[in-house]
């Protein structure tokens, strides 16, 4: 009798949880290098995504008055988080997709002096950050993965 009750509980819980399509892989094979236009927007043609980066530049430099023609680097990891950075940034910004926006999940501090020539590589489950001759850094949405540095 007790086991029948437990079975019903599980059945009800499964019936109430939202539908999830698993597994899913959102990873982009390579990063995109995107130029900011005069309105502060970037456009990624292959994945049909565009967004405003003025708030991002303001967050990083406290100045978003002159962002046109700057270049940002964007990549998406397998879990679907967007990683963004740019030359001279001290942080990598991790965003998740939201209702008509990208929401900041975490700003990961990666360089005291700013990245000289950043580039992302897809190294699932990590995102690899390169910058000139600096040692590559492995990232997830939660931050730098020390153990992956080997």
């Amino acid at each position, binding site marked *: 009798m007790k086991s029948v009750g437990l079975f019903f509980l599980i059945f009800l819980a499964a019936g109430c949880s939202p539908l999830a399509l698993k597994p899913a892989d959102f990873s982009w094979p*390579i*990063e*995109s290098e995107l130029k900011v236009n005069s309105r502060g927007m970037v456009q990624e043609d*292959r994945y049909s995504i565009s967004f405003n980066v003025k708030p991002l530049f303001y967050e990083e430099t406290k100045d978003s008055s002159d962002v046109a023609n700057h270049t940002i680097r964007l990549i998406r990891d397998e879990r679907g988080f967007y990683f963004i950075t740019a030359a001279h940034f001290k942080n990598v910004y991790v965003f998740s997709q939201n209702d008509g926006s990208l929401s900041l999940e975490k700003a990961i501090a990666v360089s005291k002096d700013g990245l000289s020539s950043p*580039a*992302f590589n897809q190294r699932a489950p990590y995102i690899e950050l390169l910058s000139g*001759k600096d040692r590559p850094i492995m990232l997830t949405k939660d931050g730098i993965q020390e153990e992956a540095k080997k």
Partner: protein
Amino acid sequence: MVGVIGTFMTFSVVAMAQEQSDYAIVQSFQEKYKAIREAIKEVKTVQECAEVSANIDELEKEFAADTALLNKSLYPDKYDDVVSEARVELRLNQDKLGIIESSVARITELEEQVRSLSRAVDSMDTINDRLLASIDVMSKALEKNATTIDSLNHLVTSLRQSIRARDEAIFAMVDSMFMQYDKNIQGLPDQEKKILVGKMERHNVVSNIMEAAKANLKFLETTQLSGKDLAGMVKEQRQFSSYWNGLGPKLANVYVSSKDRAKQIAAIDTVIAQWGRKTDSTLWTDLNGEFSSKQIPVQPFHSADEFVANLSKYFDDQINDSKSSNEEKAKNLNHFADDVWNPSINSQWLPTLVDGGVITKDQENQLQTKFASWQSAVKPSHMFLYAGIFIIILIVIIVIVIRGRKKPQAGEPNPRA
């Protein structure tokens, strides 16, 4: 030779562990691919088709390790498809121009050889510079013990092999370039001559030959070669010079409109001549030293003819010596034979000088015959000795045979019983 070059190529491969951006790899592929597609549209001659074909091969080799990345990144295209497309387009253009595929394949092979040799030459440059610097440091070292001398000798041998391999690679590279043009270079149309000049410039042919001649000269000045090594260097100088004599006029013809290059080509002549003079003078000094160090009064010589003449004269003087006693004559001969002729001149110098083209085989024979005459004049000929021994052995055999045939007489005990 390919083996030697291969060894040096392996030597020079430095594992660059630095991480590369995938984006940069894809960009680099796309740029190179785009350039190839544009070049395909421009091809007019069989050499141009071969060059583009070699570029496609090189592109495939360069990005072989990134196939998976490129397959994902070139969306909606696939890496293999885009490479095939380029090949098909090139083939269609060849057909339109009436160029036969087998000619393109043959020239492509030569072109690939040129590129691989050019890379070998570049990598050997670095190796040679490093070896030369190490030799320089070790030669100047104040303390020289057995270990440093061994290391120095090892470095000198390595450098010499590397310089020779580099020389061979350069000339093989130039050969492969000229072989792509069946016609006489003089008869080449201006357009083709321009392409050939472009290719020579890309692979630094003239500067590489100049560097090769200078490296040999510097090697000779830095190291103290002697004996066989020195004679070997003479041979290399002769070969280099002879190859250059064939190549120089061809290059002058190709670069007829470039004054700077014409000057450089003339300068190569000067350096090769300087190298030749230096090897010759070092060689004769060393060879004169073989006699003077053993107090053998051969007149000093400064050329191959002088060497043969003066040594022959020394033999003649010894043969016609009427003043010395027989004992003195035998002593002189033994001193010459044991200290100079057998261990050095006849066993090492003469074969190497002949091999290096410094003296002729006839001149070698002339010296050996003279020496034999000197020996005959001082000691009884070995022929008489051998004949005497032969006759004695013959007599002994005859006696044994006669005794063996003699039957035992009655009453005598039978030895077999």
